[in-house]
């Protein structure tokens, strides 16, 4: 069941989708613009930034489809159109899984020695997506085929990201070279950003529990979510759960001068929130409104709010765009303010769903939050400008070519069209 349908009292669902779309689109456009405009930064970092931006753009497209699906009566969509939209959004979700897998092969460092091999690996993952979608559709058809294809994409995408992160983190977290330590920290940030919802499932993995956590997800529908949870729990769940504990252990025992409190805090927060989420799932009746609401915001919160926040930290902290350029810095500050505003609105939308409060109070709280956030943004950007020309990751500037960010963007547009086509094909058999 779609949560948006069941929690009628939480009218904020549609608003949160719109805000999440706005946040994704803003992040995507910003990263794309920075990647294309900023020629001073290493091409390797630009390609990584471009891939993150493209992920946000595909996500924003998915949010548009979610919005269309949650308000069919507004647009006069028939049931058949709804089914097609579900199939298309599922295929786009599958594509984002593949995108995540590709991202981890190029950022914070490329895992393959040559650019040509990285391109081949990316092509192989896209091929895996297309073939699994086609074969699953031919063999099973309809929703089952889509579910199976999505599972394969989820296992591949999350599996690659978890494995690569584990390797970077455990290999270089205690390294003498701070640039390599940054590789370890950046990969851990990235894992929390893109696999946050999987990491939060750690109690299910450790306790061998198969409860249907994504029951409230409006992302793919209950049946798909159940299959995804089973697969992820069996294959990716152990990987990300062990990484979470490894990060906590490592950050807790590493020498003081090497310690990173941000990643330590983030990992502890995921540990506690994962446990809290598990307790809610086992203690709160699953058919109640609170459980529905909680499930929905757990998924949307990690997907729509935590991910952008972590990636902003990654982008600023690891200098993946040129903040020495005043033009770029000024525009980035304006965009940062926009992102902070949308993020604050989305955050308070979630708070309001749990604790209803008058609009005036909510507006006042957002205002107070923004006042602090703007002060914080000013300070952060001043600090960043001071060390903007510092190279913090040991990247090979010549790994990618100058035109590769543009090529990646064009290829992604083409594959997005392909994913939509696969969605239409799959939707026809439901």
């Amino acid at each position, binding site marked *: 069941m779609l949560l948006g349908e069941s929690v009628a009292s939480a009218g904020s669902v549609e608003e949160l989708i719109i805000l999440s779309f706005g946040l994704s689109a803003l992040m995507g456009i910003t990263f794309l613009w920075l990647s294309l405009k900023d020629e001073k930064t290493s091409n390797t970092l630009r390609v990584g930034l471009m891939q993150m931006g493209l992920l946000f753009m595909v996500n924003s497209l998915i949010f548009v489809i979610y919005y269309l699906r949650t308000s069919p009566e507004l647009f006069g969509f028939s049931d058949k159109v709804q089914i097609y939209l579900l199939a298309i959004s599922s295929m786009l979700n599958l594509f984002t899984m593949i995108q995540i897998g590709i991202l981890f092969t190029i950022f914070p460092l490329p895992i393959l020695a040559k650019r040509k091999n990285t391109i081949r690996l990316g092509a192989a993952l896209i091929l895996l997506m297309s073939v699994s979608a086609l074969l699953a559709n031919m063999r099973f058809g309809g929703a089952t085929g889509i579910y199976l294809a999505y599972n394969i994409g989820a296992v591949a995408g999350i599996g690659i990201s978890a494995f690569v992160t584990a390797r970077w983190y455990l290999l270089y977290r205690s390294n003498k070279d701070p640039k390599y330590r940054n590789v370890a920290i950046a990969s851990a940030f990235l894992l929390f950003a893109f696999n946050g919802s999987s990491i939060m499932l750690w109690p299910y993995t450790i306790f061998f529990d198969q409860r249907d956590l994504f029951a409230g997800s409006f992302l793919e529908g209950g049946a798909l979510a159940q299959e995804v949870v089973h697969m992820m729990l*069996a294959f990716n769940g152990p990987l990300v759960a062990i990484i979470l504990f490894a990060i906590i252990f490592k950050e807790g025992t590493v020498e003081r001068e090497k310690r990173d409190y941000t990643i330590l805090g983030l990992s502890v927060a995921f540990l506690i929130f994962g446990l809290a989420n598990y307790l809610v799932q086992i203690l709160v009746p699953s058919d109640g409104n609170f459980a529905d609401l909680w499930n929905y915001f757990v998924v949307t919160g990690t997907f729509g709010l935590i991910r952008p926040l972590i990636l902003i930290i990654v982008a600023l902290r690891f200098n993946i765009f040129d903040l020495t350029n005043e033009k770029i810095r000024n525009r980035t500050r304006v965009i940062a303010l926009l992102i902070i505003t949308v993020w604050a609105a989305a955050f308070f939308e979630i708070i309001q769903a749990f604790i209803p409060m008058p609009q005036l109070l909510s507006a006042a709280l957002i205002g107070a939050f923004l006042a602090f956030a703007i002060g914080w943004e000013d300070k952060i950007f001043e600090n960043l400008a001071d060390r903007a020309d510092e190279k913090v990751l040991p990247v090979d500037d010549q790994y990618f070519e100058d035109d590769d960010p543009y090529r990646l963007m064009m290829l992604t547009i083409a594959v997005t069209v392909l994913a939509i086509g696969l969605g239409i094909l799959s939707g026809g058999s439901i």
Partner: protein
Amino acid sequence: MLSDDFKMKTRTEEKEFVIFVVLSVILITMHVFFVIFGPAYEELNDSKSEPTDFVVENVTITDNQNIVLQNGGSDTVVTELTSNWTDEGWYLTSLVVTVSYSETATGDADCDTVSADLEIEGDSGDEPVSSTTTGSVTDCTNIVLEMIWQDLESDSDVDYLQTPFDIETDISLTVDSTVPLNDNDEQINVSVEVIMSRVQ
């Protein structure tokens, strides 16, 4: 093929990653055996395949009738259930008949003997799981007759009785009296409670 940074390093450098791989393999294997293909998964599938999201709605119908009998007399109390009950999805799941009376003759120290016999006319289905269809008392206590069927479930294969049918309670009276010529027109109350159920 792998970059120099990603390639295998010395044993000391690889120690933590090797521990990670070993732990992951163990945990994945345990999940595959115990969760995906193990009994836990089958139980989960079984429980998921069982429709549990149904609600059983019950309605109670009561019928009270008084009859007057003479010594050696008998009568039948009939409660009719019309056909539209089953048309709307209702099935008979419980029937309780309570027969009550008291000694009406002044100064009579001996209660009469009342006998009751319960039967349903009109439709036949599966036998009830609990049934008491005859009863007789001589001490002015109540006679409780009942027919209880298995609880209704969404996928129940019980052949419940379908309307229309009549619930017939035969009552007979034998006067036992310590007061000669003073024990006629005995009043007996028959209370019928029917529970009809349906799945929503």
